[in-house]
């Protein structure tokens, strides 16, 4: 009986596919998310749009908050640690969370090194903006990848940019000749071994979700049609006027992402979506996606 293997770490992400992972800050919200059909929840101190407003240093959530959420729902519970903060990750593993998100939404603890994730039993998900970044994180042991997007903006533009970058680069590598892969690995800043895997399998070696700006069912279905395996929704649910309805609608949109009739139906009467931000008006120091490399 072997625990904490790559197979079971990457395997849990495979079980989450076709599903929606929702940010929650209280056990009550976690309950609403589970009822809406979420396949997992992300337990947080604040949702990203509130982290933006609060400013200062954003850290791992209080363990008692995470535990209260774990006790309330039976679906997997994820929690975030700061980039490079391997002790926060150790704490989250000790709490028994099901997945750790080494996240740019929190203030980075190390601007040079990400966590060496292979030595943990708990699996990790990490953000990326392109294929090179995705493969660097997988090389460090991430068992699941998500686009960074621009969290807390309710604006899908960055998530689209990042998903198109990843999928486009995968297609490019797939069509390369074997003797071109070393130079491509160098350009991507990724290992030749992982680049070769992409060429032969034709996709990332782990599950890839969309995140960072999903606010409507159509946003979620857009990301699925661009090739995402599932969707994270942060502020988009509990900052909307009617969280239950929006949550259920996004869950259905991810299942029926290729069916415009269903998408039209579930998009009706959702009330006011979360307030959005034009990413171009943000100052460099307000951008979250540029954290980590």
């Amino acid at each position: 009986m072997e625990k904490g293997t790559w197979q079971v770490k990457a395997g849990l992400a495979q079980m989450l596919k076709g599903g929606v992972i929702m940010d929650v800050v209280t056990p009550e919200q976690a309950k609403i998310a589970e009822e809406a059909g979420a396949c997992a929840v992300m337990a947080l101190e604040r949702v990203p749009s509130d982290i933006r407003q609060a400013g200062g240093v954003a850290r791992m959530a209080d363990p008692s908050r995470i535990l209260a959420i774990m006790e309330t729902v039976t679906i997997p519970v994820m929690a975030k640690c700061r980039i490079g903060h391997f002790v926060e990750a150790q704490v989250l593993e000790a709490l028994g969370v099901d997945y750790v998100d080494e996240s740019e939404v929190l203030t980075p603890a190390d601007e040079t090194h990400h966590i060496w994730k292979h030595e943990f039993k708990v699996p990790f998900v990490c953000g990326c903006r392109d294929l090179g970044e995705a493969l660097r994180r997988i090389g460090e042991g991430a068992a699941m990848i998500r686009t960074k997007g621009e969290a807390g903006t309710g604006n899908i533009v960055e998530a689209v940019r990042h998903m198109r970058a990843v999928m486009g680069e995968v297609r490019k590598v797939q069509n390369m000749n074997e003797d071109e892969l070393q130079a491509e690995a160098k350009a991507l800043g990724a290992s030749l071994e992982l680049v070769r895997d992409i060429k032969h399998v034709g996709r990332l070696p782990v599950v890839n979700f969309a995140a960072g700006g999903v606010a409507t069912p159509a946003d979620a279905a857009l990301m699925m049609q661009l090739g995402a395996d599932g969707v994270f929704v942060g502020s988009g649910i509990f900052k909307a006027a009617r969280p239950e309805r929006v949550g259920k609608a996004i869950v259905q949109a991810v299942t029926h992402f290729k069916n415009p009739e269903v998408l039209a139906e579930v998009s009706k009467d959702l009330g006011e979506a979360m307030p959005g931000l034009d990413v171009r008006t943000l100052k460099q120091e307000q951008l979250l996606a540029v954290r980590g490399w």
Partner: protein
Amino acid sequence: MTKVGVLALQGDFAEHLQALGKLKVETREVRLPRDLEGLGGLIIPGGESTSMARLMDIYELRGPLKERVREGMAVWGTCAGMILLARRLVEDRPEPLGLMDIEVRRNAFGRQVDSFEADLVIPALGDKPFHAVFIRAPVITQVGPQAQIMAALKDGRAVAARQGRMLGTAFHPELTEDLRFHRHFLKMVRSRAE
């Protein structure tokens, strides 16, 4: 030609479709009741049983699915899929389909850090042990007179059962390269096909 459907509401349905593809079976993703028409068999994949149950309710799949099983469609549930096939759960949610005469406990081994891999001896599949992947896996806590245990862990806990044309496994054959379970299910599907 027998067509096999995979319930594609949420979870690792693509992995099952890929395994069936390797066995050259015609497949269909099932999301709506009309997708069940003409299927010889249906696989309910791994995933989150509460999400799948929720989506089955919204699109009114429970009735037609049970009806098709009564008419002879073979069905196989892996992990969350087995939870949904059970007659009863130890927990009060989600509401299962109640098709197999088994009682199931969800997350029976603990949280994700307790997920594991183990070799199982499964007489129905031959002498070679089956390498099984358990992810936040359930176990079968009771078996009624109509169902038979197919596989158990070393400590005796039941992790696979069969009842007529229905099959439930607590683990994920679709995550490994070993296709013996998929072949076994196809035999069940074809045993009735005209």
